[in-house]
């Protein structure tokens, strides 16, 4: 007879409820609000990065472009056109989708070519935005959004986006799309023979992976109250998304969450005390992960104990 209390469904439910309770009570917890906010932001970034890199093997090294475009569109629409902030954030997400469609042609490249071209696109975009007239993007000084500063409201919007991104990854992972993506990643030719439309399937993952960081960028602009080209298009944003997703386990649902929680907490403590060490530690981490721990926590666990696959996805 199966155990009534400690079965798979109840354990997952308990973890989900506990997690939700933690984030819902965020503003009341004796923890800095910015810590919980950025924890959610990084979970969202790692989750959506996983949709593209974990499920298709495509490494968008200029991933930060989506975050940057989202934050810039939001700030420009709100400050120059007076569009309400929530609507601006949504339009920033829409801008991210448009950008992903604009970059869609690069998906026919492979491996290192795709990574380098994507990186170049992001950097070119950064320079172009920094050189637009100051009346639009505020030049290299950026845009202030401090008059609508509302940490609690933006916190809960971020929570909503994070939950949406997790549900999306979960639905994708168990759907036909998820299976098709994994097939393409493992053997593109065989997948094509089975009747999978490779270009269309990849594009779906690409658009989904672009949508969430753009939203996150917009919300971050609202939460922090200021944006500028250097920080909105900082390559370290891509780096962190890669490191967090990889540490937890690429190609899994729980991996990016576990990775982001574990490493962002660590990052927060170190960054606060020794800012200079952050770059060094990120660099050491990414090299060591790739060389010695490419499957991450969840990937290694499920490989060692296959029965765990029933409990963690």
């Amino acid at each position, binding site marked *: 007879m199966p155990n009534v209390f400690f079965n798979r469904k109840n354990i997952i439910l308990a973890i989900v409820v506990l997690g939700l309770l933690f984030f819902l009570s965020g503003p009341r917890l004796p923890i800095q609000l910015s810590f919980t906010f950025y924890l959610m932001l990084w979970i969202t970034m790692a989750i959506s990065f996983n949709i593209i890199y974990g499920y298709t*093997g495509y*490494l968008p090294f200029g991933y930060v472009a989506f975050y940057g475009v989202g934050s810039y569109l939001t700030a420009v629409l709100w400050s120059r056109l007076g569009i309400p902030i929530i609507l601006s954030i949504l339009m920033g997400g829409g801008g991210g989708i448009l950008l992903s469609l604009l970059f869609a*042609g*690069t998906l026919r*490249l492979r*491996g*290192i*070519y795709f*990574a*380098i*071209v994507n990186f*170049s*696109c992001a*950097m*070119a975009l950064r*320079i*172009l935005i*920094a*050189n637009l007239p100051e009346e639009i993007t505020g030049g290299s000084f950026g845009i202030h959004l401090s008059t609508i500063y509302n940490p609690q409201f933006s916190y809960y919007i971020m929570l909503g986006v994070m939950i949406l991104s997790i549900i999306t990854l979960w639905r994708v992972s168990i759907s036909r799309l998820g299976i098709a993506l994994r097939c393409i990643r493992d053997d593109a030719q065989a997948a094509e023979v089975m009747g999978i439309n490779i270009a269309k399937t990849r594009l779906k993952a690409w658009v989904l992976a672009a949508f969430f960081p753009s939203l996150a960028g917009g919300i971050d602009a609202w939460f922090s109250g200021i944006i500028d080209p250097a920080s909105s298009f900082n390559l370290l944003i891509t*780096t962190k998304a*890669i490191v967090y997703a990889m540490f937890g386990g690429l190609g899994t649902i729980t991996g990016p969450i576990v990775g982001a929680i574990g490493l962002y907490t660590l990052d927060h403590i170190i960054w606060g005390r020794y800012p*200079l*060490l952050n*770059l*060094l530690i*990120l*660099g*050491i*981490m*990414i*090299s*060591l992960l*790739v*060389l010695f721990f*490419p499957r991450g926590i969840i990937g290694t666990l499920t490989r060692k104990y296959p029965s765990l696959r029933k409990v963690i996805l």
Partner: protein
Amino acid sequence: MGNLLLQAILSGILLGMIYGLIGAGLNIIYGVMRVVNFAHGEFLMIAAYMVYWFSVLYKIDPLSSLLVIIPLFFLAGMIIYHLIVPRLLKSEDPEMASFLTFYGISMIITALVLIVWGADPRGLRFPYATPSLRVGTLYISTGRAIHFVFSSIIALALVLFLYRTYLGKAIRAIIQNRDAVKIVGIDPNKISSVAFGIGLMLVGMTGALIPLTFPGITPGMGASYTLVAFVVIVLGGLGNPMGSIIGGLIFGLTENISTLFLPLALSPVISFFMLILIIMIRPQGFLGGTSS
């Protein structure tokens, strides 16, 4: 205008030679073992810092410090090869794995230089009596001229090495077909470690000479050279070391001539646009090469 254009062409050729050598080092490493050395610019930065310290502490000029830097970088390349590459080649996607690993290494190098020597730019004291030379109606700085002469010598030596020596021919053979070379009795591992050493030696030499042309040395300077190296090898064909030299010249000329027409702030965009355009239109490079 005519004079400005001539001046731009002259600078383009001088810089193009340097860019070409930076690309050639990256390209040999990529061609022989499909390792994407994203820390290429950071190795160059280390060499530039070494030259700076040699000059400040021991009053040694950049050209003499090559005597130390060449063997040192060659050795460092062999050591890095043995520490990292065999493990990389075992991973599921070696190309991406190498790219991420070396990206991590580039961050480590930058961070260490920042911690040890600080973020302030360092300037090499100009080591020559006359600041510039006159060629007809044009002027070039003495540093650049010397730099160009040495770059040309290095490029010539590289051609002779790759086409006239056994080791160089073996390297080219591995680039063409890694499996077939085993049949003729070449050990790919041994050659690969030498190739990594030569790749780093090339970047070490260019890095040591860079202060002659661009005197400012900063911890963050590496990234832009890595980018230049990528543009150059994509232009000349991935896995085609000699194509890099020509790719470098093309890039140097384009970059310098375009500055006549574009605002200065936009000049970095040129390299990005060239990179995107070439890869999208002709990923095997304009001069062919072994593209996978």
